[in-house]
């Protein structure tokens, strides 16, 4: 978070350095409660997580803690189950982000033009995102994926496709639910991007004889690029943390085939009660997230520059 100090463009009042110490604190006043609260609720727990990651610690035996050095990191990084969780997390995230992005873009292109009942269609479209994820997961697990009574098999039966979705294709089943849930999110960002295009430029291109494909490739796509980047990064950050769908639909299984990192850490902590290893895995995830986040912050801050 090394955002450089902005050029002092204080819109009003004296420059900061002319203020007395008391005045400066008075100005900071409104910020402090929120700032301190967030630090207390997020940074302090995280520091504890770092501390635990160097301890041999078990939730069931609170008195047996001892310093463990990097042993937890060693055993986590050498754990095939951890590697498996990393691989599953990548597959789930990439699959769901890409699928929902492509679908979202297509739907946004459709919704960008006027037609009868556009508002209603948009309202219908965003609903999957609003349904409580736990409820959505149960709905898919039962009514959609069930091998005998599921709607998916019923719809696909004319094509001869029958499957026990959750057991035969566990990762795909999770990706489909996540895609269903996140497509509206992608669509909304893409739609905002499309609608922020200048209508004059588009009209001028059309008058100059550019066909819809040329308009999309030359004007819309370059304009959308930043929105696509933002959608991918925000989508990744949210979807990497997927827990609800896995907990409700597969419990990480069959075997470990859908255990992603959040579920892996959950199992370590609350089923194996191995606090040290769970914490070490948590720290590793945070470090990995921060790497992704650096890119995210850069994109967000580029949007942010335009404001001033």
């Amino acid at each position, binding site marked *: *978070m090394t*955002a450089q*100090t902005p050029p002092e463009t204080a*819109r*009003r009042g004296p420059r900061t350095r002319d203020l007395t110490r008391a005045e*400066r604190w008075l*100005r*900071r*006043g*409104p*910020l402090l*409660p929120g*700032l301190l*609260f*967030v630090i207390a609720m*997020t940074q*302090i*727990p*995280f520091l504890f*997580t770092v501390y*635990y990651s160097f301890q041999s610690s078990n939730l069931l035996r609170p008195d047996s803690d001892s310093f463990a050095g990097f042993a937890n990191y060693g055993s986590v990084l050498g754990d095939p189950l951890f590697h498996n969780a990393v691989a599953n997390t990548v597959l789930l995230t990439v699959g769901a982000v890409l699928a929902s992005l492509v679908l979202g873009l297509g*739907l946004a292109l*459709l919704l960008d033009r006027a037609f009868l*009942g*556009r508002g*209603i269609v*948009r*309202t*219908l479209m*965003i*609903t*999957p995102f*609003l349904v*409580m*994820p*736990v409820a959505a997961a*149960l*709905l898919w697990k*039962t009514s959609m994926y069930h091998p005998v*009574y599921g709607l998916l098999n*019923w719809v696909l039966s004319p094509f001869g496709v029958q499957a026990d979705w959750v057991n035969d294709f566990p990762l795909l089943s999770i990706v489909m639910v996540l895609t*269903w849930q996140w497509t*509206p999110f992608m669509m*909304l*960002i893409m739609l905002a*991007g499309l609608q922020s295009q200048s209508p004059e430029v588009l009209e001028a291109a059309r008058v100059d004889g550019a066909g*819809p494909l040329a308009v999309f490739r030359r004007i819309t796509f370059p304009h959308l690029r930043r929105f696509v980047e*933002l959608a991918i990064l*925000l989508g990744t950050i949210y979807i990497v943390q997927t*827990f*609800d769908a896995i*907990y409700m639909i597969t419990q990480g299984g069959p075997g470990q085939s859908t255990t992603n*990192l*959040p579920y892996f850490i959950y199992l370590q902590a*609350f089923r194996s009660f191995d*606090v040290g290893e769970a914490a070490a895995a948590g720290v590793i995830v945070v470090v990995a997230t*921060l790497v992704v*986040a650096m890119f995210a912050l850069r994109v967000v801050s580029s949007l*942010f520059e335009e*404001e001033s």
Partner: protein
Amino acid sequence: MTPVTAPPAAPSGTTAPRPGSVRRRRRRRPVRPLPGLLAWALGLLFFFPVLWMFLTGFKQESQASTNPPTFFFQPTLDQYSAVIGRDFVPYLLNSVQASVLSTILAIVLGLPAAYALSLVRVPAWRDSLFFFLSTKLLPPVAMILPLYVIARNLGALDDARTLTLVYTAMNLPIAIWMIRSFLVELPKEVLEAARMDGARRFTEMRRVILPMIAPGLAATALICFIFAWNEFFFAVNLTASQASTVPVFLVGFISGEGLYWARLSAASTMAALPVILAGWAAQRWLVRGLSLGAVK
């Protein structure tokens, strides 16, 4: 696909149209029903599972799991009364308490902070903003253990107040970024006029700024409510029975091979409805909330 490119290609013309009419026709794009129909079809497809959940909640269990699926049936409220009879209400009240209180707290803490980070611009305002953003990037799994241990040591496990605080911290960055995005949009002239009249900061806040960003605050509150209401990870790990929220209630349906689809659907509908309604009401601002104010 351009409607009219040159006079000879004019679709309506048996005679070549006059130049003027070509110009005019170019502006009017032809009505093409296909994209609209496709949008409707896909919209209904995406909505269908939700509709199915809603319908199934009004079925008898014997109609809920059939092959082929049952589309026409005599609706019944049996499942709803069964769910409410299964102690659904305490979960509902916990959810209401945790999400409403945390939303209020997020606004109460977020509004002054957003003000300090936009209109006043305290020193290092940009660093502070990005600090708040970075906490959203911290995966909940990295914080749950210490929160669990701290709460246990304080005797605050299974307490709706603990969840309230956690949700406030979860939503505060969103609230700050979102409120800030509304504040920076305020016309400068209005603020300057208020300042000219010698309005003090607090008066300015109350009399001028607050009424102008009231819709933005409402939208922010709805977004915070949505996230808090749907939250599951902290709820399932920090509560046991007393303070459990609605998502935790639904966990009870995992076992037993999900034999009670109709009852499950009724419960899911009740669980999901508040947020669906809030989201429909806030849909104009949904994207702004989800992108922390970056996309308007």
